[in-house]
Structures are given as structure tokens and as C-alpha cells.
């Protein structure tokens, strides 16, 4: 062990012991994007004010939340004996109780207690026993969640951080041995392509150039996936350590972490981690006093989904429009600034230190034959408890649905939308029997993607959902391939027409042609964009035919606007007055004491059914109802600002039955 690491570790251990066994009790606030959304900032201010006003001997600190996102704001109290208790759904009214708890004056456990994180108390169960965590076998990627302050490098080092790096540098482990260990572990690219990481590194290692680049892809654009954010916000150093190990295994000397701008806290914490690592001699020249040199910096993205594709990401880094290009040449030959480059996902890099530390056979304890280890999944949709979990590959989807509290609002499980808008859409009959294994998804022509699992209830119409996804893909197309930008425009038009009630028999064939054309796009964005549509046509054929041919839509909160009608079923319900007041377009009128809804004005926003659910019912009776005209979005937002208004001629603005733009408040609306 190098002297340098030894002294770093000694300092860190001393600090961490003090922190985990503090003199004064300490209240740690879970501080991540989710808890900020849940209002942790106000709570922190209130707590601090009380502690200051009453002159209490209680310290405060920051921690990454334990991953129970649905229970945010989370806080932890660590007593001087080293016990740590986790509390969730904390509100301002809990402050006095929690202060008493910190002072040891509380007799009975509070009902906001989630469990013991560290140490033992007779009256409390450990957090591992929490029902939400029953599928998690062992936290490996999340091992530091709740146990370190992510902004403190010493905490990471004290929990064996940078040990793997120090070990390979000290023992002189060759690049080949590192790559073999990673290949043996079965680690496969966690971005969703599942290419073996060790083999990918081999390509870069063999490139003979002076400058070689490592890029960490943290442009996690898939809506519904946020696993990379969790790692960056809870354990940023594990990514840095993984990248330095990768650098030594591939002879790379420059690294970039490309983080999407939607994650400002992750950017802040990663920057702090990089600065601290430089200060401790872990980054820069002579990493940990070895011969290895590695420089690392952050590139902040700017809101382009397709930059998550590796060649798009590389173009974006080197000062250009982030447009993907044809491969080959592969990045290992020509990447950032046309030098050999390797792009890996955040989770892949974060898995490296533990594999080196514990060995490949340890890593393979979990998983299935085709893919090993654990994987983070972010789970959302029509479920009770949205959040993240670290699950072994092979976990059953029906078990996941059980621990997240099942489908909410007494509706039933209709479909699983996994892995973002390019990945897939499977009906419950298939999804219930699936395990989280990429091959099993492939059997049904779907992809598991990067870890987002969105559970869809039968309140949602698959056609409308398809429209929303195809519009997303259209909007985010870089525009290089006509097949992609044009194909997705056509696909969007078809779905938009169906959802307005204009579905035709030949649409099935049209969609098939579009799907086949899209396959000729140059990058995965275009190639995979018809996946959800194809799943829908194949696996939801009845529903597709109902919306297209029979003009009956089964959706409620997400339904085809042209196939639904709102009916007043109880004229004497007093809540109808509220509905009349709330209607943003004045579609509800009271004439001669009788309420009426004009469906030609109604934008189907659902505000009235929300306020008067017993008086206004939504029906779909096989008839088509006219919807207010929308101008379709043909240009992305910024671009539109740059073109003069007059040149914005759209197909719909020149058809006769459309209102002229600006004529009424509604006419300018887009139907994304």
C-alpha cells in the first residue's frame, strides 16, 4: 500500500469515526434532487432556527437520502453512541418530536420512523426489514447511501474508497489483468447496450496514440430513468475511482464526465468530488504518487436527448452540434478530437472499484447466466411508491410491482414501459411473467434499456401514450437522417390523427412502412424509435383497433381527445358550479339553469371531472368528437423563436377547417 494512500486513509478514518460517533447528537438531512422537490430546504431552515433559538447542543449535516424517495423528506439522527435512525415524510410539525428524539428524551418510537440504519435499539427494527427493501439482496452500488456525506472525500476513503485504485497501483497490476478481472465479472455496459466492459476497454488499450480519452456518459436522458443521478448525488467518488482504474487499464490520460444540465445538484457534487480528488493527489499528475496521470473534468450538457448516444456525446464535447454519426469508425479509433476514446455509462464506472476490490467471482454472486451483478432500477408510473432499488438481475417483475405498493387508485396493471422512449411497451400478461433480464425482454421485441421501469395502469390509452413518445422522439431527433426526423414526424402525424378520431384501416400498413424505414437511420435513436409502436400494434392489437377503427378509447387520465365526450349526468350537483368556474376555456355554460358542455371548445383537460366527478362523466361511445384545432409542433422551441412568425406555415394552418392562429385563445395550442 502506497504511503500516500496510507496517510490519506489514516486521516479519513479518524474523521469518519468522529462523524459516526459524534460528541453531540447530529441531525442529517437527506439532500438530493428528490428531497429538494419535497421541500427539504425549508425544513433545514426551521430545524436550524429551533436549534439556534433554544441553544441546543445538536449538530446538523448533510447526507444522501437512503433511496426511499417516496418518503422524502428523509432525515437521519445519529447519537453519540453511534446509532443512526432514519425518519421519513418529515414535516414541520415533527420538529419538536425529532429534537426530543435527538436529545434522547423520547420514550416511544415516532410513527415517522422508518428503521435503524446503524446500531441497535430494542424498540426499532433495522431498515433492511422495511417492506420496500425486501427485494434488495445487498446494496453494492448503493453501499454508501445513508452512510457518508457525499460531499466529503474522507468519508468515502474511510469506507474503503480508493482502496482498489491504490491496490492496483501499489501491486503493479497490469492493464491486462484489470481488463481480465472486469471481463470475468461479466460486467456489461449499463447504458442499455450491455456490451462487455472489459472487452470494450481492450479496444482502447490497443490503440497506439499519445492522448486517449475516457468519457463517462451521464447524459441520462431517458424519461423515467434516474439511476445515474442517484449514484452521482450519493457517491460521486466511486465514479471517479472507476474512471481512474479504467484509465490505468486503457492507458488513457484525459477524462470527461458529460452530465445533463437537468441535474444541477449532481453537477455540483461531482465538481466538488473532482476538486477534492485533485487536492488529495488522486487526480492529476502522478495519481497517488504513481506513474499514472489522469485529468478529469465535467462537461455540462444543454438539453439534447440524443447526446446520450456516444457519437452524439463526443460531437457535443468537441464544440459541435451533438449529432450522432455513422459508425465505424468507432470511438476507440476516432472519438473526442478524433483521438481514441472510450465511452462508458455512470453505473458501469461505478461498478469497477467493487469488482477490483472483491474480485469477479464475488461480483457474480448475483445475477443470471447471461448477465451478472446488481443493477439500479428507477420505478415510477401509476404506483404507490416511486423510487429506486438495487436489484439482482433476474428479479421478477411481479415482485417489484408488489413491493412498490401495486397499481394506485384501485385501477389495474395494464403495461410495463421499461427503459425510456426507445425501449419497449409490454402488456401486463407478458410483463408479469418476466424477470429483469435483457434477453427476456428481447424475446418480445422490447429492450430493458438503462433501468427505468414505468408501470402503466388501465387509465392510460396505449395510442395516446404512443403519440406522446413518438412526439418526444421526433422532437429529439438530431435531424441528420431523413428516415429518422421525417419518419418520426409521419409516425406522430398518424398517431395524432388516430387520437383525434381519424384512424383509418391502412394506418397499420403505414406504420409498418414507417417502422421499416426508420431502421435505416444511422444511429440507435432512429432505429429504435418504432419499438414502442411495434409493441403496441403487435401486443395491444385490440386496443389499437378500438381506437383506430371502432373509435372507442378506453383511457381516462390519458385518452384520445377525439374519441371521448364529457356528459353531465347530474344537473343538480352543486359541484357543477366549481366545474364551470375552473374550466379554462369556458366550455361549460349554464343556460336557463341547465349546465352544458360544448365539446368543440373543450380541450379535454379533465379539470371539471376532477372537481365534479359524480356530475360529469367521460364516455367513449364510438363517435368522433371535434377537438379544438391545434397547431402541430414542427420546430423545437428555441429554433422557433428565431424564425419570423409569418414563415411558420404548418399543414394545419392552411386547411380550411382550422381557426386562424391567434384568433382565439386556444388556437395557438400545440398538441404535443
Amino acid at each position: 500500500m502506497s504511503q500516500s494512500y496510507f496517510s490519506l486513509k489514516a486521516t479519513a478514518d479518524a474523521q469518519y469515526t468522529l462523524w459516526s460517533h459524534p460528541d453531540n447528537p447530529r441531525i442529517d438531512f437527506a439532500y438530493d434532487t428528490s428531497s429538494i422537490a419535497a421541500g427539504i430546504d425549508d425544513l433545514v431552515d426551521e430545524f436550524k432556527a429551533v436549534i439556534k433559538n433554544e441553544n441546543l447542543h445538536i449538530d446538523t449535516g448533510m447526507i444522501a437520502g437512503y433511496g426511499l424517495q417516496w418518503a422524502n423528506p428523509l432525515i437521519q439522527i445519529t447519537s453519540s453512541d453511534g446509532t443512526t435512525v432514519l425518519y421519513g415524510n418529515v414535516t414541520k410539525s415533527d420538529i419538536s418530536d425529532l429534537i426530543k428524539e435527538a436529545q434522547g428524551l423520547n420514550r416511544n418510537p415516532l410513527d415517522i420512523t422508518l428503521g435503524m440504519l446503524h446500531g441497535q435499539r430494542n424498540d426499532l427494527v433495522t431498515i433492511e426489514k422495511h417492506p420496500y427493501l425486501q427485494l434488495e439482496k445487498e446494496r453494492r452500488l448503493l453501499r454508501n447511501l445513508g452512510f457518508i456525506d457525499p460531499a466529503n472525500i474522507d468519508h468515502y476513503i474511510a469506507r474503503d474508497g480508493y482502496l482498489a485504485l491504490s491496490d492496483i497501483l501499489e501491486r503493479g497490476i497490469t492493464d491486462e489483468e484489470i481488463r481480465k478481472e472486469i471481463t470475468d465479472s461479466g460486467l456489461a455496459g449499463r447504458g442499455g447496450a450491455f456490451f462487455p466492459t472489459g472487452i470494450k476497454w481492450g479496444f482502447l488499450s490497443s490503440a497506439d496514440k499519445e492522448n486517449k480519452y475516457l468519457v463517462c456518459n451521464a447524459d441520462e436522458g431517458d424519461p423515467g430513468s434516474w439511476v445515474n443521478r442517484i449514484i452521482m448525488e450519493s457517491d460521486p467518488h466511486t465514479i471517479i475511482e472507476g474512471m481512474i482504474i479504467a484509465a490505468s487499464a486503457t492507458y488513457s490520460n484525459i477524462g470527461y464526465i458529460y452530465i445533463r444540465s437537468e441535474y444541477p445538484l449532481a453537477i455540483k457534487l461531482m465538481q466538488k468530488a473532482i476538486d477534492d480528488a485533485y487536492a488529495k493527489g488522486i487526480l492529476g499528475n502522478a495519481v497517488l504518487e504513481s506513474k499514472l496521470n489522469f485529468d478529469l473534468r465535467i462537461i455540462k450538457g444543454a438539453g439534447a436527448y440524443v447526446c446520450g448516444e456516444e457519437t452524439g456525446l463526443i460531437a457535443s464535447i468537441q464544440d459541435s452540434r451533438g449529432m450522432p454519426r455513422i459508425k465505424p469508425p468507432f470511438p476507440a479509433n476516432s472519438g473526442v478530437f478524433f483521438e481514441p476514446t472510450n465511452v462508458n455509462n455512470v453505473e458501469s464506472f461505478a461498478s469497477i472499484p467493487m469488482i477490483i476490490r472483491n474480485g469477479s467471482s464475488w461480483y457474480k454472486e448475483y445475477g443470471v447466466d447471461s448477465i451478472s451483478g446488481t443493477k439500479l432500477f428507477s420505478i415510477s408510473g401509476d404506483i404507490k411508491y416511486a423510487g429506486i432499488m438495487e436489484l439482482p438481475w433476474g428479479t421478477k417483475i411481479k415482485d417489484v410491482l408488489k413491493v412498490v405498493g401495486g397499481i394506485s387508485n384501485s385501477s389495474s396493471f395494464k403495461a410495463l414501459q421499461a427503459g425510456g422512449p426507445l425501449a419497449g411497451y409490454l402488456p401486463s400478461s407478458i410483463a408479469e411473467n418476466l424477470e429483469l433480464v435483457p434477453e427476456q425482454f428481447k424475446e418480445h421485441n422490447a429492450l430493458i434499456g438503462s433501468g427505468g421501469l414505468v408501470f402503466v395502469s388501465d387509465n392510460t390509452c396505449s395510442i395516446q401514450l404512443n403519440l406522446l413518445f413518438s412526439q418526444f422522439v421526433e422532437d429529439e431527433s438530431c435531424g441528420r437522417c431523413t428516415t429518422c426526423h421525417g419518419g418520426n414526424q409521419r409516425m406522430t402525424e398518424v398517431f395524432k390523427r388516430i387520437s383525434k378520431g381519424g384512424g383509418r384501416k391502412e394506418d397499420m400498413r403505414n406504420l409498418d412502412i414507417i417502422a421499416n424505414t426508420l431502421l435505416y437511420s444511422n444511429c440507435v435513436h432512429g432505429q429504435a424509435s418504432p419499438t414502442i409502436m411495434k409493441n403496441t400494434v403487435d401486443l395491444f392489437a385490440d386496443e389499437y383497433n378500438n381506437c383506430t377503427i371502432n373509435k372507442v378509447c378506453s383511457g381516462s387520465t390519458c385518452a384520445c381527445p377525439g374519441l371521448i365526450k364529457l356528459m353531465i349526468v347530474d344537473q343538480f350537483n352543486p359541484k357543477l358550479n366549481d366545474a364551470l368556474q375552473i374550466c379554462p376555456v369556458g366550455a361549460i355554460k349554464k343556460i336557463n339553469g341547465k349546465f352544458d358542455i360544448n365539446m368543440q371548445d373543450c380541450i379535454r383537460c379533465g379539470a371539471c371531472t376532477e372537481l365534479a366527478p359524480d356530475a360529469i362523466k367521460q364516455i367513449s361511445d364510438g363517435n368522433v368528437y371535434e377537438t379544438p384545432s391545434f397547431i402541430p409542433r414542427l420546430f423545437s422551441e428555441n429554433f422557433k423563436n428565431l424564425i419570423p412568425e409569418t414563415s411558420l406555415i404548418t399543414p394545419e394552418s392552411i386547411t380550411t377547417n382550422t381557426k386562424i392562429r391567434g384568433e382565439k385563445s386556444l388556437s395557438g395550442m400545440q398538441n404535443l
Partner: protein
Amino acid sequence: MNNNYNKDSILKLLDPLTPDNADLLEALHLIQENFGYLSKEALEIVGEKLSLSVAHVYGSATYYADFRFEPPPETIIGWCSGPACLLKNGIGIRDAMLAVFGTELGQQLDNPSVEISMAQCNGTCEQSPQIWINEKVVGKLSVSKAITIARDIKEGK
């Protein structure tokens, strides 16, 4: 926000940046963070500083959804377009708010100074459906709540 949009202050901001060093996005972010938007002059200065043609800078900047080319409005309502929000009638929330203001996505209004723009999922789906008002999350929305919020903003409350 700095209103002193002149060449010296921009150059000072861009001082540590160099050509051929992956600094373009950083330059554009720095200017937008400080001045709120990217002006034509700012793009010219960036090009000069990073040895890129103005057309290249402009072409890159307009590719990304984050950048604005005119001063931002007082209130930006970010509408979350993620799947968890869409399943819970996110479309209804969007259309209702747009209807209250009589606007469309990404269009900047003067009176009141407001814009509803499309925002991307950042994984706070336990709050769905949600919007951001000047980057502060307003979660667990309903359409009627969204309409009330929009009307309050419209009336200057």
C-alpha cells in the same frame, strides 16, 4: 443577474477558456447564467475567443434546448414531459395552463412576463404530476390546482 452586457464583461467571464479544449458548452452556459440569454454579440465574442466561426457557434447553440436568445421572462413554468407525469394527466395540466394564458409551449408572453416551456424528467417521479415554477418544484398537482396557479400568475398574485 448581470445586466451589464458588454464585451469586456463577457471576455472576463470567458477568460479561462481556450480553443480546441471542449469549452464551447461551458462558454454558452457561463454567458446564459450571468446574463440570462445569449445575445448576437455574445455569440460573436465566443467565436472569437474559441477560434470558431460565428455560424458554428450559432449552429451549435441553437441545437440545444437550454439556450435562449432573448432576455428570459420573469416567470418560467417548466412543464414536466416525463412518463410518470403523462400517465397522471400531464397533458391536461399542460393544455389547461396554456389555455389560461392563451399561449403555446415555448412562447414568451410580455404581460404577464411568463413562458410555459417543456421540461425533461429529472427523476422526482414521486411528485408526479409536477411543474417547475422558476426551477422550484410544484408537485402532486391536479389540473384544477394548475389552473388556479396559472390564473394567480396571470393576475399578478
